[in-house]
Each structure stands twice: as C-alpha cells, then as structure tokens.
C-alpha cells in the first residue's frame, strides 16, 4: 500500500500535471489552427461610412439592454449565480488547500499560499452540496435529463469523486490510507481528463467567448471564425 502511495504521490502526480498542462496547450494550439481572423472585404465603395454604421445601430442603452436581456444573467439569474459560486469554489479549493500545498512544498520546495483548513473544509462541503444539486437537475429536470449522456456522467464523477474522497480522507471517516490513495488517483485522473473530456469547457469558455466573432463575444472584440 505504501508503495502505491509513493507512486501516486511522486511520478504519477508529476505525469498528471504534465499531461494536464500539455493538453491545455495542445487544445489552445488546435483552436488557433482551426480558426482564422475574419477577412473583411475591401471594397470601400460598397461599405457604409463610419457615420452611417453608427446610425444603423441602436443607441448604447438599448444595445446594453438587449445584451442583458438575452444573457443568462437575465433569463436564469438564480442558476447563474449558483453556478458562478460553484465554479469559483471548485477552482479555489484545491489550489489553496493546505494538504495539497504541503505536498507541493515537500516535492518542489515552493510553498503556495493556503487558506485555513476550516475554510477549505466548508468550501468542500459546499461543492459537494452543488454536486447533489447538479445530480438532482440531471435526473429530475426534463430539460437537463433529455440531453444527458454518458459523457455528462463521466464529467460529473470526474469532478465530484475527488471532492468526496478528499473530504472522507481529511475527516478520516473510513480507513485513511486507502481513501487518500483513492483520492490521489481520482484527483490525478481528473487533471488528466480535463483537456480531453467535457471539462475542456474550462479552456474553451475563454477561447470561444473572447476570440470568436459573435454577438455575445466579450467586449465585442472577437474577430475569429472557423476555417
């Protein structure tokens, strides 16, 4: 058992970090290879002048209003707030977890800042509650159930099992050693899977919304289209 622990704690942890970072880089390169800056046709005679363009578009306040009304902040305000809280916690907790950062210090000598264990424990419980909520949605809301497939369950378990096992290990609810080993394995599995499963939305949310030309592109700055 101790051997397995050392394997997961050492080489496999390193490999999972490398695959995770390499996978993210691969996906970013893939995105820029498969999209290009949209070429605007250069026939000035046919194009309206800057002043004319201004008069086509509705005044600023109406533009803002339509943008607001179409966005999820207006159509589903509660779910949007909840999912934002979930996403902030799901990312902050493992990064600022004392147990994780002690391991990092032991391995590489750098000590990233940590939150107190009380706080991260509460965060963990909140994330697990969100897990129950997402599970409820997937099973009982017809609009979510009807599009749920195997890949969605994979994403669900990849996200919440590391939290559950981390929590159980921290509180030593079952026998500690097997639980930590399981936790490390599932945590590493999740890292490896992020760039290649539905969790890649973590990368593409930003790429899509900042770089692709679309009505809802952040700051309207996106200028890329698919090849």
């Amino acid at each position, binding site marked *: 058992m101790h051997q397995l622990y050392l394997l997961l704690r050492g080489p496999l942890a390193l490999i999972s970090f490398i695959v995770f970072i390499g996978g993210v880089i691969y996906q970013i390169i893939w995105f820029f290879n*498969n999209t290009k800056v949209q070429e605007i046709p250069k026939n000035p005679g046919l194009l309206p002048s800057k002043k004319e363009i201004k008069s086509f578009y509705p005044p600023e306040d109406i533009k803002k209003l339509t943008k607001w009304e*179409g*966005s*999820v902040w207006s*159509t*589903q305000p509660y*779910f*949007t707030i909840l*999912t934002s809280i979930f996403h902030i916690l799901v990312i902050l907790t493992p990064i600022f977890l004392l147990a994780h950062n002690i391991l990092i210090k032991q391995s590489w000598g750098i000590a990233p800042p940590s939150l107190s264990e009380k706080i991260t424990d509460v965060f963990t419980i909140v994330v697990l509650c969100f897990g129950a909520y997402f599970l409820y*949605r997937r099973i009982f*809301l*017809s*609009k*979510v159930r*009807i*599009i*749920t*497939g195997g*890949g*969605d369950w994979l*994403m669900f378990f990849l996200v919440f099992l590391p939290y559950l096992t981390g929590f159980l290990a921290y509180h030593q609810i079952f026998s500690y050693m097997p639980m930590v080993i399981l936790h490390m394995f599932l945590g590493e599995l999740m890292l490896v899977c992020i760039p290649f*499963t*539905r969790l*890649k*939305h973590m990368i*593409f*949310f930003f790429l*899509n*919304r900042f770089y*692709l030309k*679309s009505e*809802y*592109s952040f700051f309207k700055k996106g200028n890329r289209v*698919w*090849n």
Partner: protein
Amino acid sequence: MSNLPDIILSNKSKIKFAMSLCARCSMCAPSCFLYRANNGDPTYMPSYKMLNSIGLIFKKKGNLSDNDLENIKNIVWEKCVLCTRCYCSLGIDIPYLISLARDFCRQKGVYKTYDN
C-alpha cells in the same frame, strides 16, 4: 462507411468540437422563443435540437433511417426557425450547426414544402 456530403465533411471539426464541448447544462433553453412559447417543452431547447439533428447525423455518419430523417426534418424546420437569437454560455454557434442539418436534409431530398 461514412455517408456524409461535403458540406458536413468540411465542417467536421466544428461539429465534433461542439458535440464534445456542450456541457448539457440547459442554459440555452429560455433563450429560444419557441421553447418559451411551448411551455418549456425540452424538445424545443436549442441544445436538444442541435444534438438530435446535426449531432445524430454526425454520430451515425450519415447512415440514417427514414424515421431518423423524419425526426430531424421535424426538428430543423418545425422546431427551429433559425432566427439566431439563442445564447450558449460556452459560445457554441447553435444556429449554424442546425443550418448544417438542414443542408444535409436537402441533400437527401428531405425538405419542408409550403404548399399544403
């Protein structure tokens, strides 16, 4: 055997990408006026329409039964008007993908007729 017309093949990476990225979160549902007008019938949800039209075509590599084609025809003409008002939080271009399913149907000789 793949049975996909060029218009689908030339959009292959975009389709595959959308299918694997869509988080099945249903955030796009109320952005479609047809979903709202039909009392939240989930088969009017943009992601449902995208996954069950172009998604199905792609998954089955174009080898669809008549029944599949009939369902897709119903989705892409009766349940979506391609008004492009839907909103995907992850930035998936849903109307474009649904329009590809229309292209596919036309190539198979399946389309909406307005004379009856």
